[in-house]
């Protein structure tokens, strides 16, 4: 737990540095939110309030931007983020069924995180690797030519971790 607290304050410190480097400009709100999400993996209320204060803008504006863009999330992410591509090429090759299989195996819906905080399941639109369709990514590692059957294999890789 103490480790966790340390990490959070380190994140705040790094975020403040980023904001300072951008001269506290409120025009850079989206860049700041990107950085914050990279650091914290998600944008909880406290982080948004912190950003609003630092940039001297209303928190309603920060929340407006966060809730507008699907990239930003207020849900804490798991240690492993599974992204199933639902872009056209992947979709026509059955990635919706792959997503459904992940949902089934993990017992969560797309966009949710497992209770133990291990996995987050999300979808995205095209990672630019259509030759490998359907594509699944786990924490940036790409799995090409995925099938409903390989879902189990992919998950098995992370079972022990």
């Amino acid at each position, binding site marked *: 737990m103490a480790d966790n607290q340390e990490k959070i304050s380190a994140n705040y410190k790094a975020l403040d540095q980023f904001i300072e480097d951008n001269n506290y400009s409120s025009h850079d709100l989206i860049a700041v939110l990107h950085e914050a999400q990279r650091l914290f993996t998600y944008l909880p209320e406290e982080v948004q309030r912190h950003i609003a204060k630092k940039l001297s803008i209303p928190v309603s504006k920060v929340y407006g931007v966060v*809730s507008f863009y699907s990239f930003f999330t207020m849900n804490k992410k798991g240690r492993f983020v599974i992204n199933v591509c639902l872009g056209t090429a992947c979709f026509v090759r059955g990635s919706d069924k792959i997503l459904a299989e992940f949902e089934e195996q993990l017992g969560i819906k797309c966009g949710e995180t497992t209770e133990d905080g291990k996995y987050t399941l999300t979808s995205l639109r095209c990672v630019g690797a259509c030759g490998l369709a359907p594509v699944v990514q786990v924490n940036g590692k790409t799995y090409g030519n995925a099938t409903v059957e390989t879902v189990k294999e992919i998950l098995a890789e992370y079972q022990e971790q």
Partner: protein
Amino acid sequence: MVNIKINDIDLAVEENTTILQAARKLNINIPTLCHLSLHVANEKNHNSSCRICIVEVAGRRNLVPACSTYCQEGMDIKTHSLRVINARRTILELLLSDHPLECVTCDKNGVCILQNLAQKYGITDNPYKGELSKDNTEEGSIIKRNNAKCILCGACETVCSKVQTVSILGHRGRGFKTTIGPAFELSLENTPCTFCGQCVSVCPTGALTQTSSIGKVWKLLSDKTKHVVVQVAPAVRVALGELFDRPLGEVVTGKMVASLRRIGFEKVFDTDFAADVTVLEESHELLERLKEKKNLPILTSCCPGWINFIEHQFPDLVSIPSSCKSPHEMFGSLVKSYYAEKMGWDPKDIVVVSIMPCLAKKYEANRKELSQDGLKDVDYVLTTRELGKMIKEAGLNFNDLPDEDFDSPLGESSGAGVIFGSSGGVIEAALRQIQYDLTGEVKNIEFTNLHSLDGVKISEVDIAGNHLRIACASGLGNARYLLELIKSKKDHFDAIEIMACPGGCVSGGGQPFHKRKLSKTIVKARRDGLLSEDRNKSIRISSLNQQVNTLYKEYIGEIGGERAHKLLHTVFFSKEDE
């Protein structure tokens, strides 16, 4: 100048004139819905989101929004061609396709701009049926939000962020799921909302309305064990008439009193009486602070929206407002102490109802510190609009009622109490009193440069060797401007009056709806009503109010004394955001 043609009529307009403005010069009515001109605050909401004002411009492929398209040389504009009418009808049908069609039970029934347009354009059978946005509604204790009725015009957001600078309301989400409300889907009560109610004033539909206490008040009125006493704020009497088709700004005090009596209130009193008490207490406080030359400027404390603002936005400055309760709260505590004793009533059996031009007063009445021995100073607050409804529910023909006088003794007031309802009035009343206290006479009864409708007014006066620098702000954005000056010590003032609503209480969030135009004409008319009421009063200085003097002699004792502090003063809190 730019030469244009609207509906074949030639017109020359100045550059940077919108088609909408040009058409209005020719008395051509182009419907608007999202467009909002807050003339008093010099602020506009013109995001062209509703498209109802579209017109046809010769040579252009698409119809253009009149509110945000500027006139250009040679433009040939048609404001009601068949194409325009059909497009407007479709826009209305689409707006109504996801709108709950429960007009009969809606609080805005009859004053809803969407309803009004649907009627004008004859929308009787809508070919489009869509899903309603049901989420994020809030039945607050002061303001009700119903996002299903919201057309996303953004007027509330404009007034909240640009005029009042509190920025509670904002767009959330995207696409069909877009809603307007506080961040993190919080309820208004959990935000630094000041409850000024300006968002309710500008909402074109029933998406933002007030929570009504009419039902509870009717119930108490029929309870024979209760003494239900009513008081009316100054700004109500110059706006209530508008709900009964009377001219803008007409003073309807007499008919208002008559209607309250007929509704069944046991005593009909005037908040202006308590305003006179406020003047005595507040000017006493000012003179004390001037003597000690500390804790200046003194800030007025009668406006509960403003108090909410300073508590949240300037928590380090909460020691500078006058500690006076607002007049209607003073009134409430006096009724439940002084008047109760006089009448031999048990304070527990007294119900104090305030008729106010304001929504923040509803919030204020629920403040825990504004009570004595567990009894709230004021039990219920009704807005001017709610009083209008009660008069109609009671079946009274307002216009045929005789003029009646307030009950005595808490119904008597000086002209100084009357002008509390308009920006500049509270400070003017205090200046009259200070002159009288220091010199024994009042040379300047009116401070006309405090009467203007400007958002910030600065004035200097000399009274008996005291040079006073005075400021007034109305609208919370202007209040913020003055507070920043004080905080950074860039300017010095001795006394500052602040009202949350642009123009003061006359344009409060509880006043009759006026097609959302907080125009100078309306505010000026209501203000002039108050000024004329003041001029017609035989007494215009608070300390000459005999009933107030009796109150001090019989009950309170010294101005600023122990009992005065117990009954008439309060404390404010620093509410730094969590």
